[in-house]
């Protein structure tokens, strides 16, 4: 037997020891083998395990240890060399792996420990972030509240609603116990409790406005913490057991309309403020946070703005109501005035007739009576009666005229009349009086004064007569001169009419009449009064000259209606007087026919005699007559296009053609149809050629038909050269010519 290191069994007690060793080794091996299995199992289960390599190593180490112990089982008894070798190699391997593992662990364990610290750190961080997020959320919610509050406040223009809403919303947002608004009274010396959150109708709490705490709040535009014991905050009896909640007060500027001046925006000290008091719930540990105070300030500003809007609205509503009232009143006044005017006009109209009738009777019968045999006294009486009634009649006329002139219902007639004749008539009317008073009168008509003029002859004569009559009336001796001439702008330059301008025109001229007398004259101060109704100058000389004082007023009105001007100049008492007036009269038209002996400067055969290049169109289905008409027009120099049917005519006609001649005695063809077509084709009046019908038909109905169809002219055939010439010129000048059939 070879020697071995094994321990020889000595006796039965050593067998027990060996048995126990045997069992222990077995179990150790088992354990050693099962540990890596467990490890592998659990690591597989877990999701993340960074140290696989370590695991392998550790597993190897344990397996080898287990193997070693297992192999040990064989070494208790006699074992061969192989077993010994295996055992040894296993042990060596185990030793190697163990050492390596031990070395590895030196690196790994600190890492594992630091993981733990990191985990702790992250946990803390997460908690912190959670806290911050909570804070932000609160703030954001507050912001939302503010917006909503603002929206609520701005959504109404009623002051009461605004304030109530503010309080309610604020109370809700900030979870306030009480919220109160104190408004300044009318006197401005006290603050009155106007709105509260909890109480519906606060009654009569007032505090004087000059308390130090209130001043402190008013002088600061931020929310100010005040003591819960101050008068403005002591609204309810203390219900809580402990501390009342913190109280904050803020001023709310009340903007008055009178505060708004253009230059300085309200920074004046005369501003009024309301006081808003906010109380946190008592018995809570809540304190006013910064963001809550900010919210309160923002809200207070918004309220101020909303209130000012409400105030402006109230003001404008009030102004509008006022205006409406005024409107109604004015309307009423206007209607009354109109009624009055109507009534007066009616009255005048009636009176006019009613007054004139008896007047007429008196005058007529008195003059008849005058013709009979009378005693001198009777004659005198009759003359007085006549004179008085004439005066009265004139007065009635004047009054009526004036009243019509005043409300502008008088309209001037316009007709052509002989201007020179008017002057001559005035002269002849005034001559008797003039000769009786032994005055001399002269009339000068300028050579360039037109003989004929267009205007209201009667009223012009009335005016001239009045002016001349005045001149005669107020002259006891001397001479009167009447001059009439056409006024040009230069002659007006120096006169007393700075704001009267002559507007030159081809159709009007200005007649200037000057009446100079060497009579009693007028003091310059009285001159403006002359033209006023019923005003009389007080100088002795005029006292008994009679007259109603209306004459000049009426003249002025007439002159104004004739777009003119009248004025009187005088150097003073005894120096005579010059009355001048200018009126606008029309120039009678030259083509006004035989009535006028007034020959116009142009030759009789005026108008165009040269139709060179005038484009015309001739339509006639009869070739011969078409050629003849064409020849006629060509001879006169026109550029003639011909057409032998309506279709052809419509095809050829253009806006270049100035005249279309058409034959309307073609049977079967309605020439009038062509006129209608042409009207349709040329909608603009200046583009449309003139349409002239040529007919041999002497039917009266033809002319009507032509006019109805919209033709501009009608000529009877046969047409001579001269006739065509004059027809063309007439047409082109007046754009219409209907020959007398």
């Amino acid at each position, binding site marked *: 037997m070879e020697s071995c290191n094994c321990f020889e069994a000595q006796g039965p007690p050593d067998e027990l020891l060996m048995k126990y060793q045997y069992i222990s080794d077995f179990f150790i091996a088992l354990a050693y083998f099962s540990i890596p299995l467990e490890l592998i199992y659990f690591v597989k289960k877990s999701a993340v395990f960074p140290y696989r390599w370590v695991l392998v190593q550790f597993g190897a180490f344990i397996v080898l240890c287990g193997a070693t112990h297992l192999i040990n089982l064989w070494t208790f008894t006699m074992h061969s060399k192989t077993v010994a070798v295996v055992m040894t190699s296993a042990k060596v391997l185990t030793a190697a792996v163990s050492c390596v593992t031990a070395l590895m662990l030196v690196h790994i364990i600190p890492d594992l420990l630091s993981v733990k610290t990191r985990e702790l750190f992250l946990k803390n961080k997460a908690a912190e972030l959670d806290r911050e997020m909570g804070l932000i959320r609160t703030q954001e919610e507050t912001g939302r509240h503010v917006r909503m509050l603002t929206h609520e406040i701005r959504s109404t223009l009623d002051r009461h609603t605004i304030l109530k809403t503010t309080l309610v919303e604020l109370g809700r947002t900030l979870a306030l116990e009480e919220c109160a608004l104190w408004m300044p009274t009318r006197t401005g010396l006290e603050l009155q409790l106007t709105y509260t959150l909890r109480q519906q109708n606060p009654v009569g709490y007032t505090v004087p406005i000059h308390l130090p705490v209130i001043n402190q709040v008013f002088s600061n535009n931020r929310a100010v913490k005040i003591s819960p014991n101050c008068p403005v905050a002591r609204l309810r009896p203390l219900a809580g057991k402990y501390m009342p909640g913190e109280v904050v007060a803020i001023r709310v500027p009340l903007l008055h309309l009178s505060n708004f001046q253009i230059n300085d925006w309200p920074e004046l000290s005369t501003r009024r403020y309301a006081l808003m008091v906010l109380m946190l719930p008592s018995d809570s540990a809540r304190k006013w946070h910064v963001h809550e105070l900010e919210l309160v300030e923002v809200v207070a500003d918004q309220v101020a703005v909303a209130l000012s809007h409400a105030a402006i609205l109230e003001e404008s509503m009030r102004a509008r109501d006022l205006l409406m009232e005024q409107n109604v009143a004015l309307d009423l006044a206007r209607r009354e005035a109109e009624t009055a005017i109507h009534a007066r006009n009616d009255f005048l109209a009636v009176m006019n007739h009613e007054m004139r009738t008896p007047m007429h009777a008196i005058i007529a019968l008195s003059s008849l009576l005058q013709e009979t045999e009378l005693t001198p006294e009777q004659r005198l009486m009759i003359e007085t009666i006549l004179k008085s009634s004439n005066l009265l009649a004139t007065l009635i006329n004047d009054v009526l005229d004036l009243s019509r002139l005043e409300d502008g219902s008088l309209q001037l007639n316009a007709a052509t009349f002989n201007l020179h004749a008017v002057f001559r008539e005035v002269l002849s009317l005034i001559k008797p009086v003039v000769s009786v008073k032994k005055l001399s009168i002269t009339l000068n008509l300028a050579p360039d004064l037109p003989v004929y003029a267009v205007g209201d002859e009667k009223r012009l004569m009335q005016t001239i007569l009045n002016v001349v009559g005045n001149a005669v009336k107020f002259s006891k001796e001397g001479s009167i001169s009447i001059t009439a001439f056409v006024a040009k702008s230069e002659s007006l330059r120096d006169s007393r009419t700075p704001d009267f301008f002559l507007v030159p025109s081809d159709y009007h001229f200005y007649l200037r009449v000057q009446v100079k007398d060497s009579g009693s004259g007028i003091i310059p101060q009285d001159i403006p009064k002359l033209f006023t109704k019923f005003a009389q100058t007080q100088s002795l000389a005029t006292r008994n000259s009679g007259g109603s004082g209306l004459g000049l007023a009426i003249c002025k009105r007439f002159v104004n209606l004739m777009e003119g001007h009248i004025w009187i100049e005088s150097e003073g008492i005894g120096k005579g007087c010059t009355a001048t007036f200018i009126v606008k009269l029309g120039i009678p038209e030259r083509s006004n026919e035989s009535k006028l002996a007034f020959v116009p400067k142009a030759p009789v055969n005026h108008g165009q005699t040269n139709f060179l290049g005038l484009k015309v169109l001739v339509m006639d289905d009869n*070739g*011969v007559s078409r050629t003849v008409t064409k020849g006629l027009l060509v001879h006169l120099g026109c550029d003639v296009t011909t057409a032998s049917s309506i279709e052809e005519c419509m095809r050829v006609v253009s806006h270049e053609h100035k005249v279309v001649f058409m034959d309307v*005695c073609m*049977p079967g063809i309605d020439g009038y149809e062509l006129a209608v077509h042409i009207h349709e084709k040329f909608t603009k009046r200046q583009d449309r050629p003139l349409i002239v019908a040529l007919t041999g038909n002497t039917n009266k109905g033809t002319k009507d038909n032509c006019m109805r169809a919209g033709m501009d002219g009608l000529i009877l055939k046969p047409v*001579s050269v001269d006739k065509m010439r004059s027809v063309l010129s007439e047409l082109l000048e007046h754009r219409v010519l209907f020959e007398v059939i």
Partner: protein
Amino acid sequence: MDLILLRRKVIEHQANLFREGYLDDQFTQLQKLQDESSPDFVFEVVTMYFDDSENLLGNMTRALEQPIVDFKQVDAYVHQYKGSSASVGAARVKNVCANFRNLCEAQNREGCLKSLHRLKQEYSVLKTNLQYLFKLQQDIRTAGGSIPMMD
């Protein structure tokens, strides 16, 4: 010599035509329209008239030859002819036309035929006369003279 003679003849002839009533003032007007720009205006118009006449007269004849006469149509022709004649100043023709129209209205076939006959007669006389006139005028022109106008 010839020229003066020719001119005198023309004047005489024209005067005759006017006196007899073949031509009226309208013809004078036509002559007035003759100038340097249209030296043959009258001739052209009259030639056109002749053609027109032949045409219309033919139409009238055919229309009246129908078993059932369309008087409206005939009237239309006559109206046309009247117009043409008036345009050139053919007075007698125009008058016959006027009469013709009345007969058409009365739908008097016999009368119409008679009128037509008269119309043709008048027309042929006029044509002859005018052609003679033109020939004279042409002769004057070839002889280098100017055509005398009637005032």
